[in-house]
């Protein structure tokens, strides 16, 4: 789990176009979180945001025969979501004045949407790093970093001993460091992530 197996892009596209559900699931898993992040920056309501993302995948499915490359698919998804968001905002019965202004700003100024797309993609790439940790370490790391849970809470949640959790914690930090050292780099961001994890 959490592993990535190399796959052949051409056969993936072929399966997808011919309606293979597993390949659909693949693209969903690949893009859903980024799209979700992107949409929720524009749409305050979580349920509405979820609907928009779900609908875009349905539209993708309907048109699956039209796509040549994975990047085509990704672009379609973002554009579809963007349009659905703008539509939704336009049709809101009541908006706060801030939202009204925001919508007008978005309609006039495309750049901020483009930056949001870039950011959503970047978060996906960064998140991949974390996903590549072995499962237990990843779980613990996520709980500390994202949920900011304490060691004893984690122990209860994962049904492990407190000592085990502490071990996983320090091991995951080490693994990340090693991975980065292997690449011969020290990124300010990644180090900060590690520091944070170490301190908690």
């Amino acid at each position: 789990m959490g592993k990535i197996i190399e796959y052949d892009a051409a056969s993936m596209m072929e399966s997808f176009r011919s309606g293979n559900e597993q390949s659909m699931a693949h693209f969903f898993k690949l893009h859903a979180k980024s799209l979700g992040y992107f949409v929720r920056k524009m749409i305050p309501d979580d349920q509405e945001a979820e609907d928009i993302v779900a609908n875009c995948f349905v539209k993708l499915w309907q048109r699956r025969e039209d796509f040549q490359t994975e990047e085509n698919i990704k672009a379609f998804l973002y554009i579809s979501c963007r349009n659905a968001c703008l539509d939704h905002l336009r049709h809101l019965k009541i908006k706060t004045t801030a939202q009204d202004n925001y919508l007008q700003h978005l309609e006039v100024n495309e750049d901020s949407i483009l930056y949001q797309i870039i950011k959503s993609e970047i978060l996906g790439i960064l998140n991949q790093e974390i996903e590549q940790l072995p499962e237990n370490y990843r779980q613990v790391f996520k709980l500390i970093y994202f949920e900011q849970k304490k060691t004893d809470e984690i122990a209860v949640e994962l049904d492990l001993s407190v000592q085990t959790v502490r071990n996983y914690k320090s091991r995951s930090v080490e693994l990340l460091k090693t991975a980065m050292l292997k690449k011969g780099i020290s990124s300010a961001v990644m180090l900060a992530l590690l520091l944070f994890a170490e301190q908690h």
Partner: protein
Amino acid sequence: MLEEQFHLSRLIAAHLKGDLDSRGQIEFDQWMAASEANRIFVDGLSESTQVAEDLKAYNSLNEQLVWNKAIHRFQDQTKTGKIRAKNISIFYSAVAAAIALIIVGAGLYFYKRTENKQNVAVVFVNDIEAGTNKATLILPNGQILNLSAAKAGVVIQSGSLKYNDGTPVAAVEKANPGLLTTSTPRGGRYQVLLSDGTRVWLNAATTLKFPASFTGLNVRRVEVSGEAYFEVAKSYKTAIVNGKKSSLRIPFVVKTSQQETEVLGTHFNINAYADEAIQKTTLLEGAVRVSDGEGNKVLKPGEQAALSQGVFRIQQIDTVAVVAWKNGDFIFKNEPFENVLRQVSRWYDVEIINSQDHKDLHFSGRVSRSRNISTVLKALSVTGKVKFKIEGRRIIVIE
């Protein structure tokens, strides 16, 4: 489409991870130098607590839920025969996928988490209905009549009281000098047709005092507290001016606790609730003069006079929004949250408890007044800025 954005995201991510090769570095530096906005964007991503927050937000999507929604809609498509979708596999199935495909499953941990999350739809139990036609009429002799909820308005004539469809309102003594009072409660609204043909719409929690007959008067005077929309009929009297017979207009004056509005024949809205700090007079057609005993201002159509602390402020205003209540809608234009709450509370006759600090929150939009309160509350909460709970006849702002 978007190739540039996808390329940039890989480039910038590589920079953040410290992974750029020399070519990438040059490209990155060029991009950063190209605009201030680019630099600001990357700086925003380099702050690690911000990254942590963003990653947390990124990971908080309930993928299982969204997938389920998508699946249901695939299957709906199937029913119309459009798409074949047999046995779409459960997203986090334990069954290994075909070898040629990526296997990206979730750990047990993740699956457990999604089971615990409950998607609670916003449902209001004990919904509250919209306001209805409700009013009382108090006669000069003190007699109180409850006006029928089945009728929308009452017609005043010196000798009789009838509903707007002609049926009489209970037997009333003739020639009743003195003022009558029509009052709508909270959650009520009514129309009154005065004996000179002037039509008045009363919003909730409003009182209108007026004489049964204007005959022989040089001024037609009424009093309002609350909110009312007037379509004043023109009224004339013959007089000898400079030896000649002429027709003079008889002014119509509306008095509120703080001001008087003098009207010659026109359509306007007065908003003068005791619990609102500002009294507003909005002119749609014709001409009015507003005065508070010290200063006065003449309004032109499309203008609103707002009286606050002894000063009249005039501005051009969207009259449609101002009289929306009469036409069955709430229309908010950059309306402060507290004002929105007061309007809702009067129309639905509910108490609203607001302990949240939403001083800077303003709303714009339109929502019907004829639906239950949940419709309005939902429209407000969909903005993500406020949440409500209904408890009997109380609405509590919980966020």
